[in-house]
């Protein structure tokens, strides 16, 4: 799990262009949207692409994403349960 969390942080930094950030800088339990990292709806769309590309998980709409993208840990748990690749 911790390995997946670390890998996910790296992927998030890459796909969202979080320049100058390291995986250690992201608190896996902190909210990603609004407070915490302060991501927005466009980031959510990028994360949806990431989920499908890297883990074969297809989300139906942005609302579904909202539930899953609460924190890096929640995403990692969801991936563990649903990944197809």
């Amino acid at each position, binding site marked *: 799990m911790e390995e997946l969390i670390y890998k996910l942080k790296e992927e998030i930094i890459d796909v969202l262009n979080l*320049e100058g950030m390291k995986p250690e800088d992201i608190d896996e339990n902190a909210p990603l949207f609004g407070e915490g990292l302060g991501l927005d*709806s*466009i980031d959510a*769309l*990028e994360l949806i*692409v990431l989920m*499908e590309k890297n883990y074969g998980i297809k989300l139906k*709409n*942005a609302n579904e994403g909202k539930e899953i993208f609460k924190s890096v840990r929640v995403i990692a748990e969801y991936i563990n349960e649903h990944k197809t690749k």
Partner: protein
Amino acid sequence: MTKIVVTGIGIISALGNGKKQTVEGLRAGKTAVGPIRILQTKHHELPVGEVALSDEELKQLINMPAATATNRTTLLARVALKEALAEAQLAPNSSDSIVLISGNTVGGMEKSEQYYRDFLQNDHRNEYIGLHDCGACTEKIAEEFSGHFKFTSTISTACSSAANAVILGANLIKDGTAEIAVVGGTECLSKFHLNGFNTLMILDKEPCKPFDAQRNGLNLGEGAAYLVLETEESALRRNVPILCELSGYSNSCDAFHQTATSPNGEGPYLAMCKALQSSGLSANDIDYINAHGTGTPNNDECEGYAMMRVFGDKMPPISSTKAYTGHTTSAAGSVESVISILALKHQFIPANLHYHSPIEGHSFKPVTEVRENVPLKHVLTNSFGFGGNDSSCIFSAYQVTGNRCQGTDSTPQRPIFIRAASQISLQAPLSEQWFEEPVVPDTLNCDSQEANYSLYINPMAARRMGKLFKRAIATAMDVLHKGNCEQVDAIVTGTGLGCIEHTEKFLHAMLDNDEELLPPTHFMQSTHNTISSQMALHLKCHGYNCTYSHRGTSFDSGLLDVLTQMNLGDIHNALVCGHEEMTPDYFNMLGKIGYWKKESADEETLRRHDSNGSFSGSCSLNLLLTDTPSADNLCTIRAMKMLYKPDSQQLDSALQRILAQNNLTVNDISAVVMGLSGDQANDEVYLNFARQQCPEIPLVWYKHLFGESYCASAFGVYAAAVILQRQTIPNHLIYKGKIAKGAPIKHILVYNHFQNKDHSLILISSCLY
């Protein structure tokens, strides 16, 4: 008050070709959205509003040879334009001053996406390279009717493009620049657009349900529509039937988010309020609202709240007609203007199809069945684009007003000043070092020298930005700082290509990944108006916001827009800017069609101008314009005239008119700033002009320092401003002639043309004399 009337309309959409089929379709209350039949894509799960005619059939309608290289966006436009011009009884080569303003967002993309690999790898499809950009579409649309138009331009504000074309056309008429304005927009379906909207997850796989609680996105459509606008006086003089009046309009910026509308719909609210204000009507006078109503969760909720704020509990009947036509994007503003005018004419209200129950919090229900025999007098139509480019127009039943309408010369000429300038280019960024010690370009594809953007943009905002956005924001903030100005009434951007880097990235991904797993960010950034809306977002500027993408006169078009509005007294200060970037691939593509020199572009080579092309220079320039006199102003803009395909006599009379208006003769001009670039054909036009108009006057050039790009002409205005302020012309800017040392530099003429088609003349004067 100049009364503006509509004397011709033309339309083509999924509902059919022409007004008759459109009215029949609307009255039948049946959607024209259905499965994809013509567009070559794998996304057949997405319903679209596709025009039922093939390219070949469209070509037949306008008698175009089947082998002509063109694109669907141009074809749709020509069909609609033909209908509008015929109804308005406009014959070619009339003496009237007629302008064409056309909106589109992805230009010739529908062909570029098919031939992109050819563009990169071989010479089989080179004839389509020059048709790729937005301005090229307008150029090709105008070509067929070239006897009609005295000026053409292209607006690219995504889904409000055509509404903004209506607004510019109306302003040009009010200001006396044009007598008749043909305005509208066009866009065909493309894989690029379909996949782009798909990455944003706002396409419904079912027919769209605007304003419904269960709405789940939009259906993409295609189409074109044009309106002929003119003064009441002109229509009466020409003795043509008047369809209705354009009684009000407004453009505001939501300045909230790159794609989403603010929760309380601030931009839409401002657009509707100001449109009402400009019409002199009250909210109660509106009999029908043709809403933007795309069917996306965000738009419909926010537009609904904005309408509730404007109309309170006296909400007029509302419908979105996008469930009939699909969302025709750039054409939507004119498609729905034409639908509004048809509703006025035939006194009916089209239905808001597929609606069942209201959105939580909404106090209104749209019209769900077609209503006939409704006494409509005033119809408001909304058009909103990405980046919060929000516009509203009001069309009213025409009432004869006799002599109320005054001539077009009554507008007072106000002094308009350039307060400050800021640039990022291959020269030292955010500085005027180029005026003393210029950098000598050393490659044929010169990128800009970057500034320290962290001073202007926080890292979270910067991370998604392409370099063009950063340059635009940095120069905007720098110019406001230099001009000691906190907020502006308008931001107007010229960009021929927009953020081409992101466009290419999306195109590559789409072709490489077979239309799957595409990055939404790249699509959003490819929309040309993103640059202008990012500036508005950063400056929290809710004022007028518009983007021009008209090849080599993109910046000039924006400047004309700002000068027109300042002259009308609608705005008092504005940012007007030009932003271009270049990528290696696009550089190579343009190289194939003669844009660049082959080996080097040193000054000596450029001066010889004995071969095609110049060198490429990325550029960003922001000018702050104001109507407030100040000792800090750099110079004053006295006059501007833009012309489409003028002969030398027309150019001459335009120049003489500009001079006469300012009580000047050609001998009062101290220097002529020209876009000489080393390209044989282009330079010949400039030098001919100089020989005929001002053989004795020193010529100044600037493209040898900044390179060639669609917005390079901005640097001509900039150079003139700095020369006038400093009262000196450094040797490295002089192309020919000499200025006596210490002689006052009072007036400068800036002359720009693009491929001898679109021309602009700008008279700029010193504030010292």
